[in-house]
């Protein structure tokens, strides 16, 4: 059943989202065309600016579409169909999450691509290459790969919080507040989670230590609080300590948020 749900989820979301990419690709083409063939500076600059803005807009619009899709498909009139399908509510959530995750990651890639092409249009690719060489000379190019799991985790974490908030808002206790309940629950959940995550990041003795001299990273049982204290005291740090407790907390919370949302969809949600 998950494959069938995914089929319709992708089919429905694909009606709008790829159009954004098409517009972006047209502008990327215009930027490349103006750099290679046209050589009109104002046109090159304008298309580069538009492409950069489109890159940002694509990620934001994709995000908005995904959130609206979740609400509309499950908790508005369409929910009367979705919640009467002979499938486990957890599968409904899984299909929405997988499709949303795919589109969000694709939008990040598009944004990154749009930025690179825009920078090319601005004529700053030389500086970019120099910066990359600098990073490589420090032996830090592999550090870039650390961003990938961080982005994946952050995306899942955000989706988990949004789906949780929208679902809580559709339990009978909050029906009277309407859509405002989803915003309030999201803000409250986000603030609480950020506080706890900050505590975990700073105090849990599980960190990554990055040396300054020759950039290298290693896991350590130091906590970030000690590093902050030393820095405040004015001692010269030989590297930076970044607490990983927050990431562990995020991984756990992603599981908790999706599990609780799935349980609520099964046992608590009542459609208005």
């Amino acid at each position, binding site marked *: 059943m998950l494959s*069938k749900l995914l089929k319709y989820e992708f089919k429905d979301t694909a009606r709008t989202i790829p159009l954004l990419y098409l517009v972006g690709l047209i502008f990327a083409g215009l930027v490349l065309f103006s750099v290679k063939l046209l050589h009109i500076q104002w046109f090159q600059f304008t298309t580069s600016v538009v492409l950069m803005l489109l890159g940002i807009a694509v990620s934001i619009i994709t995000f908005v579409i995904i959130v609206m899709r979740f609400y509309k498909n499950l908790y508005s009139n369409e929910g009367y*169909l979705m*919640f009467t399908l002979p499938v486990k509510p957890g599968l409904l959530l899984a299909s929405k999450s997988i499709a949303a995750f795919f589109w969000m990651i694709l939008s990040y890639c598009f944004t990154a691509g749009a930025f690179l092409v825009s920078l090319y249009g601005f004529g700053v690719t030389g500086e970019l290459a120099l910066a990359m060489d600098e990073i490589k000379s420090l032996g830090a190019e592999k550090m870039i790969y650390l961003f990938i799991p961080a982005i994946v985790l952050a995306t899942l974490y955000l989706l988990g919080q949004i789906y949780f908030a929208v679902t809580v808002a559709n339990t009978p206790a909050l029906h009277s507040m309407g859509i405002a309940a989803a915003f309030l629950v999201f803000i409250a959940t986000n603030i609480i989670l950020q506080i706890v995550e900050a505590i975990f990041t700073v105090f849990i003795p599980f960190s990554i230590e990055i040396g300054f001299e020759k950039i290298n990273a290693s896991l350590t049982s130091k906590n970030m609080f000690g590093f902050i204290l030393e820095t405040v005291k004015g001692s010269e740090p030989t590297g930076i300590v970044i607490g990983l407790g927050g990431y562990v907390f995020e991984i756990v919370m992603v599981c908790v948020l999706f599990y609780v949302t799935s349980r609520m969809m099964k046992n*608590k949600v*009542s459609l208005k």
Partner: protein
Amino acid sequence: MSRIIEISSLDKKYGSRKVLDNISLTLENGTIVGLLGPNGCGKTTLIKTIAGLIKDYKGKVLIEGSEPGEYSKSIISYLPEKTYLSENYKAREALDFFEDFYADFDRKKALEMLTQFKLDPDQKIKSMSKGMQEKVQLTLVMSRKAKIYLLDEPLGGLDPASRKAMLDIILNNYSEDAVVLLSTHLINDVERIFDRVIMIGDSKILIDDTVDNIRENNGKSVVELFEEVFKC
């Protein structure tokens, strides 16, 4: 006939307002049951509870012996009073959707019904009138060979001619061993198809009897009895 829906001591509140108060009833297969009452009396809430869309109720609701869930949803064909199809779908895509998710969906029958209603399978739902959308939904629901049909105000947005056609569709397409629970406040049009009627008012069941008994014991038609029970 066997009991397919069993409800006992069902209570449901919206805030402090009680909508269903100690409702107990059983429905057997092979019957068409009218759920009658004025607007806001709890008909939709009762149907949504059976369909598994409302979970915060007290009491017991059993569908073929188990609580509303994945299994009950596979044997219930539910028509809500709202348009629940994605506006971006064409009627044909809605048929694809039902065919994918319901093993008992008969596509050939659905296409025949669309033709009968003079509906174009390639027309988008959002470009259809409310009445046309209702006909597409009824087509989808009645093209399943379900054990339970829950039809919530299926005649609400239709003109009299369409109402008659809709009732004929229901009569001609429901499985003989199924139960049909049809809620309406437009009784004049539907009395002829009911085997049994349940009248709800003030969140309670006021009358639950067969149409034959009502006529025999009260000497009145269902319409006349309804008007007497819900006299303003």
